[in-house]
């Protein structure tokens, strides 16, 4: 499998405190990589390295090399706007814009000039919402405010927003933590479908979800990448005792 993103020796510091220690990982193209690990181990921090979202945190410092195809992500010369156009993100907490549902989805395609007409835009809004399993619930109220939706609906709106510009890579930080089992199943189905065209990195606290959707799994603990292997291997026959303890729930 060709690798889409390859990180080598990544260290991340929040001020003096080191949050990630010497992480090296290969993210395969068009497959789903799950990141698991206990709370506070640095999963989100790593995810945010991949689209340079750590830039907005003043005290955050990232060292090491992260290659996106042949592009060095962690370089001063990198055009972050181009990077983020190609590496979309769904955040841990739903954060729709305080605008209408329609405007939420239409924003990305509009600023990147992906559409020529209102019709095309309407189409993108509809397909994005359908893919995110939200269309049926909101099709009659596209022009209501997005922040008026329930937490789970908001999260699906954010997913729809992220896929509206068809990024090559989609980073998902616990996208299902606010969803009920039905919506979760729909999102997992979506992830399955998206991986035909996109590369996906998903952080999750649900072992079963990681096992269901991902091909590769990485286990983080206290800022270290303890083990990274095929999902099958990690869940059936982990090479590390800590991984074994964590996935069987005997941790800590």
């Amino acid at each position, binding site marked *: 499998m060709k690798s889409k993103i390859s990180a080598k020796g990544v260290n991340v510091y929040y001020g003096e405190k080191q949050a990630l220690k010497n992480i090296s990982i290969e993210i395969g193209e068009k497959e789903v990589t799950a990141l698991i690990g206990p709370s506070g181990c640095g999963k989100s921090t790593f995810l945010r390295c991949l689209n340079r979202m750590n830039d907005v945190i003043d005290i955050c410092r990232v060292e090491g090399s992260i290659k996106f195809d042949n592009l060095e992500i962690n370089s001063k010369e990198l055009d972050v706007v181009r990077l983020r156009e190609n590496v979309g993100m769904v955040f841990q907490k739903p*954060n729709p*814009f*305080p605008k209408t549902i329609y405007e939420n989805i239409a924003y990305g395609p509009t600023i990147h000039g992906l559409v020529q007409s209102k019709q095309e835009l309407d189409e993108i809004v509809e397909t994005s919402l359908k893919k995110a399993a939200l269309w049926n619930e909101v099709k009659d109220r596209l022009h209501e405010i997005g922040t008026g939706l329930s937490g789970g609906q908001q999260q699906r709106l954010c997913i729809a927003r992220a896929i509206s510009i068809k990024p090559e890579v989609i980073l998902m930080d616990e996208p299902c933590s606010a969803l009920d089992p039905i919506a979760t199943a729909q999102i997992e189905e979506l992830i399955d479908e998206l991986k035909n065209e996109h590369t996906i990195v998903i952080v999750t606290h649900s072992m079963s979800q990681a096992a269901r959707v991902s091909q590769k799994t990485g286990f983080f603990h206290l800022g270290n990448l303890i083990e990274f292997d095929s999902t099958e291997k990690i869940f059936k026959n982990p090479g590390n005792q800590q991984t074994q303890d964590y996935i069987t729930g005997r941790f800590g």
Partner: protein
Amino acid sequence: MNNKRKNFLEKRYKSEKRFQLFGLASISLALIFLAIFLIKIFSNGYSAFTKTWIFVEVNYDRELLLLEENPSSEDLNNADYYDIAYQSIIALDPEVDESSETFLIEMFAYNYELEIKNYLKKNPSDLGKIVKLKLTASDDIDQINKGNYPRDIPEENRRVNNYQLKIFDMLEARGDIINTFNLSFFTNPDSREAELAGIASSFMGTLFSILVCLVFSFPIAVLAGIYLEEFAPKNKFTDFIEVNINNLAAVPSIVFGLLGLGVLINIFGLPRSTPLVGGITLSLMTLPTIIIAARASLKAVPPSIKEAALAMGASKMQTTLHHAVPLSMPGTLSGTIIGLAQALGETAPLILIGMVAFVNTIPGSPLDPAASLPVQVYIWSESAERGFVEKVSACIMVLLIFLITMNLTAQIIRHRFEKKWS
């Protein structure tokens, strides 16, 4: 529940009640002061909104006016109305002796001649006829009519003598004294005569000053706020600027007046006493207020929304202009209104740049000399006549209404933004 916990709970409820009571008490106190203030202003000032007229039969005698038949409007304008005006007024008392004639004349506003002339200019066909006209009463008669002057004090302490009082009573019994809405208070510029003085000049002066102030301060302050909050690097230099902006907000306004005088008038040669200079001077004061408000409300925009936009590939500027700025607008507007409201009531800097000059014309643009409402209050409160006392209060009322209108507008705009964004 055991007793100890029950007592504890009761204590908590009690302290909550006490807290609410304190709050209620302080609000009531504030409201009482406000009510006293408003009642005082209103009771002093409401009579300024009415005006006393005296009906007089004016004989537009063609011969006395030295006019031909069907005179041109120029002739009407140039004619001498002194005689017919004088004759008409002293005819009010058929038994008047020569020494009392001036007393009769003094019962009218000094511009009675002009009023008589203006009527004929408007109705040239009344030439040669006798017309019953209402003429503005003098300030003293106005005050007698409104009951603001005591009548039962010795004559030498009164501004209206016994003879004038007798005539006044006679006219009133005849129904020739009337009281109407005082339109001229709103349409006249300032005057040395209380019965003719109005707020048109100062109102327009204030309006123009505030507009100039808004035009100069709002865009600059919002841009400065956005730059400082979102784009400027955080270093010693920007810290220094921040400290100085905060200091600027605390500088006494009279200092800004000196700056306006020294820089705008003396160096740039802008015209003195004009709302243009006044507005720019005031905008120096409002700038820091708006900058601080804009920065605070930009800071209050949830970072998660900015992150959402950035993660969608929006540039820093797009994130700011599409998301942060619209969300911060309600707060920025509140700050702007607070700043403008302060500017509205400012007197000292305007006095320094000469907006205290006696202006008896109505300004048509920010480049014409004008007064302003608070300065007008200041000028009138210096005058002793009772007529100006009521006008001071009336002027304050207009100022307050101006303020309330401004706040309401801000509320409406705010509401629009909030509805759109949340």
